[in-house]
């Protein structure tokens, strides 16, 4: 393959997990290769360079030779999240809050005790548990003073108490001070006063540590999530900043031309120099959503639902009318935050999930734990002794025991059969194959409920949606979890296993800032003037802030496209929706354009809920997103060949269990199928990283972008 030596790389997407670092590299023709290396937590750039080397090795090239042409360089990783989960962050943080609210972080919100549990865990009171606070209680100092909910000063800030609080924190040797006062999102005055006093005290004490204000970091209502976000930023995200910068620099040294961007929870990418990195902490499943949006645009699909089946979880996200909804209430390591996040929902239903028989209920039960990368009892060396979903798929003939991860892990079918028989089939008094299929059915119906719940929860029916399935195990289960749902179309990209990484490379370079505003549009319109003024002023401020962020990284802010939007609800209800504004400068006569957009969106999303425009509207937040252009990968077009696959792709046949009986299934090598080929079920299409199951009655067609379309 010497001819590939003069490869020109267009995009590199990096995904640093707890154990492995994946790199996904795309060349100028749209071809891609995937590399893997061990993660090196102490110095992440090592693992990253190794992973890139592994990937480029498949093309017989090295970064120094082919990296200059890189235009998109995107990082996502779990390092910051792991710092939080393993409680290995920097807890040497001082916090100043209103006096009387020193325990806000410790009290948390009771929902942090149960929101991570499944249905039965939520019922079972004994399982509820608060997350352990991140900072010792003594590092929280209260200062008297209060701003009220509409932003007026109720009690002036007590200056002497503030001085004392700062002095005490400095004497403790804290490395930064977070300030989070009630209602500062409406009026930042007290927080700014605290900052000024702190600076004076620091000067006197000859110290200089960062003072971070919640009104600047995240001026959004909800003191618990706002404070949590502030603390976690300092505890887990900030300590990783240097690592990010080092990765960027080392890649630059190797001649990579593009700037390193980090993927955020809202789907954009930001530079490692951005003032806040907390939005980059939950980027795991986000890549898949960006990839989904990319395909939605490419294929002109309005409503696309993404479904990602991994070893431990099943993630579902929606794009509606080509728009990816965001939610701003999210959680990390059981702490609620108020960072914007692509609306994704996960359930614990991955292929590594354990299947057990419960003798009390006489039923099969699943999870919640998972064998993860240990696969199942079929992986003899793993020491796993409990049957997993993968074991079930194996004995049913869906998986090739000699071709799992390209044959790197041999699977023992007899062992899987024996365990399924003993642990599940015998107690249920049924046959092991039926049992295995039944177990998969139950898990797949859970997935189906989850999918359907999300779609119907928004007032749609699956008929309005195209589904895309990815993740290593998506293609294996997609027929099962979409059965009976009548999706408009089902897409399965050939590169399903690397689809998330592909999505990362498609991400925009954007900053999203938001601010709570609480503006009321009354039915008689008497406050419209003030509403427009405040809204425009807030957008203008957000735009300025974002321009500065781009300036900081050396981009020309004139290149930036500014997308103003707002979050709005009927007055009195508590759940807002995000509406894109066609105006940066809204006039009184334009307000109804925005409210009409909201009415339409509300009706579309909550078909069953009556609109209540007679109550008036409440604009809760102004949101601004600044986007600068970055190159994105393109999908190559392949010439369409015959419908009949070539002999070369055929791998013989294997018996498959489906619908209560055995069927002879034809086997195909995925990489050798041609665009235009049609495969009728029963069949299995195998690739090293994934397996596509085409059950009897199903058929798949490979299109010009090498994406399978599944039909029933």
């Amino acid at each position, binding site marked *: 393959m010497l001819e590939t030596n003069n490869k020109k790389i267009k995009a590199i997407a990096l995904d640093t997990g707890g154990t492995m670092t994946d790199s996904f590299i795309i060349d100028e023709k749209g071809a891609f290769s995937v590399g893997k290396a061990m993660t090196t937590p102490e110095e992440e750039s090592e693992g990253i360079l190794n992973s890139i080397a592994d990937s480029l090795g498949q093309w017989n090239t090295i970064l120094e030779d082919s990296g200059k042409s890189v235009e998109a360089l995107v990082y996502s990783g779990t390092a910051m999240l792991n710092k939080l989960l393993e409680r290995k962050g920097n807890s040497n943080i001082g916090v100043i809050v209103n006096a009387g609210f020193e325990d806000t972080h410790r009290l948390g919100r009771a929902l942090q005790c149960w929101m991570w549990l499944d249905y039965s865990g939520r019922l079972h009171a004994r399982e509820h548990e608060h997350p352990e606070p991140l900072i*010792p209680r003594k590092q929280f100092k209260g200062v008297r003073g209060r701003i009220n909910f509409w932003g007026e000063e109720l009690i002036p800030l007590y200056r002497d108490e503030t001085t004392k609080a700062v002095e005490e924190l400095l004497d403790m040797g804290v490395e930064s001070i977070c300030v989070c006062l009630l209602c500062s999102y409406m009026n930042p005055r007290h927080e700014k006063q605290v900052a000024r006093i702190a600076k004076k005290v620091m000067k006197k004490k000859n110290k200089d540590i960062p003072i971070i204000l919640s009104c600047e970091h995240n001026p959004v209502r909800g003191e618990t999530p706002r404070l949590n976000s502030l603390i976690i930023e300092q505890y887990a995200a900030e300590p990783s900043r240097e690592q990010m910068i080092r990765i960027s620099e080392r890649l630059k040294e190797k001649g990579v031309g593009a700037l390193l961007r980090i993927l955020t929870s809202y789907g954009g990418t930001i530079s490692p120099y951005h003032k806040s990195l907390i939005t980059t902490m939950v980027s795991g499943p986000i890549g898949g959503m960006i990839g989904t949006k990319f395909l939605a645009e490419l294929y002109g699909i309005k409503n696309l639902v993404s479904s990602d089946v991994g070893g431990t979880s099943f993630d579902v996200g929606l794009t509606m009318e080509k728009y990816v909804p965001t939610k701003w209430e999210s959680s990390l390591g059981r702490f609620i935050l108020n960072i914007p996040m692509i609306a994704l929902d996960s359930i614990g239903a991955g292929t590594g999930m354990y299947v057990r028989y419960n003798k009390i209920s006489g039923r099969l039960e699943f999870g919640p734990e998972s064998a993860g990368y240990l696969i199942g009892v079929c992986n003899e060396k793993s020491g796993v002794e409990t049957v997993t979903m993968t074991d079930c798929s194996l004995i049913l003939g869906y998986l090739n025991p000699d071709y799992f991860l390209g044959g790197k892990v041999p699977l023992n079918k007899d062992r899987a059969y024996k365990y399924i028989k003993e642990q599940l089939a015998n107690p249920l008094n049924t046959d092991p194959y039926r049992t295995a299929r039944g177990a998969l059915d139950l898990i797949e119906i859970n997935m189906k409920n989850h999918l359907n*719940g999300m779609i119907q929860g928004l007032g749609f029916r699956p008929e309005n949606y195209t589904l895309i399935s990815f993740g290593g195990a998506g293609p294996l289960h997609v027929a099962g979890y979409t059965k009976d749902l009548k999706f408009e179309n089902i897409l399965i990209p050939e590169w399903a296993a690397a689809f998330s990484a592909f999505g990362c490379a498609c991400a925009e370079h954007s900053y999203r800032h938001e601010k709570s505003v609480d503006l009321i549009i009354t039915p008689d319109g008497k406050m419209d003037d003030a509403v427009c003024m405040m809204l425009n002023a807030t957008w203008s401020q957000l735009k300025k802030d974002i321009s500065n962020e781009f300036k900081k990284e050396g981009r020309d802010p004139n290149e930036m496209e500014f997308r103003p939007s707002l979050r709005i609800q009927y007055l009195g209800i508590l759940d807002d929706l995000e509406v894109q504004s066609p105006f940066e400068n809204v006039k009184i006569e334009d307000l109804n354009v925005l409210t009409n957009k909201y009415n339409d969106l509300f009706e579309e999303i909550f078909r069953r809920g009556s609109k209540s425009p007679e109550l008036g509207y409440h604009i809760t937040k102004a949101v601004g997103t600044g986007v600068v252009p970055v190159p994105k990968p393109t999908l190559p077009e392949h010439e369409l060949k015959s419908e009949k696959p070539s002999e070369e792709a055929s791998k013989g046949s294997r018996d498959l269990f489906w619908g209560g009986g055995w069927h002879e299934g034809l086997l195909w090598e995925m990489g050798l199928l041609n665009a235009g080929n049609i495969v009728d079920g029963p069949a299995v299409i195998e690739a090293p990283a994934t397996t596509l199951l085409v059950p009897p009655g199903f058929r798949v067609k490979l299109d010009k972008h090498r994406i399978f379309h599944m039909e029933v």
Partner: protein
Amino acid sequence: MLKKPIGWDGKTLMEMLNESEKFIKETKHYYGIDKLALKEKDPFNYERAYASLRGALVSSRETALHISASPIVKEIGELCFALYTPEGDSIVVSTGILVHVHTMSEAIKFMIRENYEDDPGINPGEVFLNNDPQEGNVHTTDVQTIIPIFWRDELIGWAGGVTHQIDAGGITPGHDLVAAVSRFDDGAYYTCRKIGSNDKIWKDHMINAKRAVRTPMYWELDEKCRLAGDLMIRDALFDFIEREGIDYYKRFIREAIEEGRRIVQERVKERLIPGRYRAASFFDVPFKEEAWQPRAKMDKITNEPIEIIVKEDGTLFLTFDGASGPGPNPMNCGIGAMEGGQWVLLTQILIYGDKVNDGAYFAVEKEYPKGTWCNPGDPYLSYQSPWGNLIPAYTGMMKAISYGLFSRGYREEVVPGYGFTGDAIQGGGIYSSGPLKGERWMLSTFEISGQGLGASAVKDGLDWGYAMWNPESDLGDVETWELFQGGIPYLARKIKPNTAGHGKYRGGANYAGIAMIAYSKDVDFFGAREGLVFHGAGGMHGGYPHATGYRLYAKNTNMKEIIENQKEYPLWDPDPEHGEFEKLLKGEIVRKAHCSIYPVLLENYDLVHFAMSGGPGYGDPLERKLELIKKDLDDGIYSNDKILSIYGVVANYDEIKGEWIIDEKATETRKNELRNERKEKSLPFNEYWENEKKKITEDKLSEPVKRMYSESLNLSIKWAKEFREFWKFPEDFQMEVK
């Protein structure tokens, strides 16, 4: 012409209900089903069917939450949905405030028994509303929307949704009133009333309902939300039937309930030991001083003894035999409330699997003695705050079952009880300045859903995170609550020391808030919580009960001056004996040992304090590990004096480190002292018994205690006999009350 019956196979709903009840009585199986044929034939399809129905319920609730309005419903999730059989038995339920699942069942049965089928008629697309505590509800502020679901011309089920309202138009603002003494004080009553057709709510009803309450906007939005959820359930059910067929559905729902019943039986067999379990609990109604109405001026203690018999076949029998009488106060309970409370607790401690339905109801045989507070049988009493009696009463059930769990070795499952969901402060006022001038605000925080849970036999209880009526409890954010009650801004929300019940494993701890009246006029303020009695017979195996509540507020304060001069104002009340209010404020400081008060009028700059409940402890405090005690001190869970007097631990505060250091040697000495004190204080049982009996014979009991026992003696022959025998009193013994 006679109308065609809407039940199955040409039967009326009443015939179906009678048949169902006959079956359960005669066969002990739901609908006489002794074999789960569908499950046995194809267990996987059966489970799939169940999962898809439950999935539909959960997602209907999620969606309805988005379109609902009242802060209680959205912020705290005070909403739940269930699907019922034609006879009104729940098949599958959503998450949320599960206490209501069985209540709606009673409402449906009421409509069937009253022959609604004939008059006012039950037709497709119609909507029924209920909030009558006598007929399957808890109190008037819980509002249920129930719709019948038809397949062709048969009624195949009901969908029901319930939300908790901020206000139902009672004698004072609020959702758990204190000042109601009769039905006519409870607010708007809708006794299973038809309020709509063609999937729409009638306009005349909506106009009426909105005028009947103080928060018309929330009422309307919540009505829309419940109906939307019900309709989504109906859609999902139609999908189900199209997929599985109507015959499968009909058989399936009965098997699912029978299976639910069996699951309880199996779980009981697995977790408990057959026998008779008993626990005591009480609630105080201190209205001699508080009440406005002459006939309500009476101090009462409610007797709430519970007895559970675990039978060998795994079924349970539960009785409140010995309960005292109802009263001219809002704490009386209808059967719906009793069933709801029991059901929700069973799902939290025993049957928390994903297959939860009215099977659990059928697995427990129960007795709510007539004429007592838990079954007064009088629709004209007030039932506005049944929680007052209900919450303490069922702590006894937790404790009784915990003895069973402990005996069987499930130490980690033990729960000796939980905190009362209070202090439920309420009231409201009118803005007198600011952008909302002239608008009404309501004090209605639902942070009461974050209380302390009892310790288990292996670890401490859950702090600030449990509500017996909603497994998905939450406190909400102050910044959110203030949007709705901005006339009473918070000055503090801080961990309150010494709320947690002491023990080797301590109960859950909690916090207290301080708030100040501002920008307002005409402010009513009241609250409710136990104050003079412990409930749940507190603690287990040597653990202590959690601290009781009390009332503290300040009127005509000098807060304005304090603020202007940047002087200290109170942020907490860590030691009620040396109060911060008294130390820092000038004005009228009201401190009462009882916690439930009638509304008082407050003015700007008045201050209120409200403390949430801890949970009871487990085991002897002397056995608590020293490192846990250090953490308790550092986290402000206990004060140093309590650590010294109860745990026998000597600790000193290290100013430089900013933490507590335990003096292990001094601790050993102190613990020995405590052990010796205990020895000195202890008595042989007979002596103790004699001393206690003397309190009765020498007339040393307080009036409320005597009244309580007098009522119990007169309401139950069985209980009276046991009481007299225990104390060796003559057969005609009575407790004399003036």
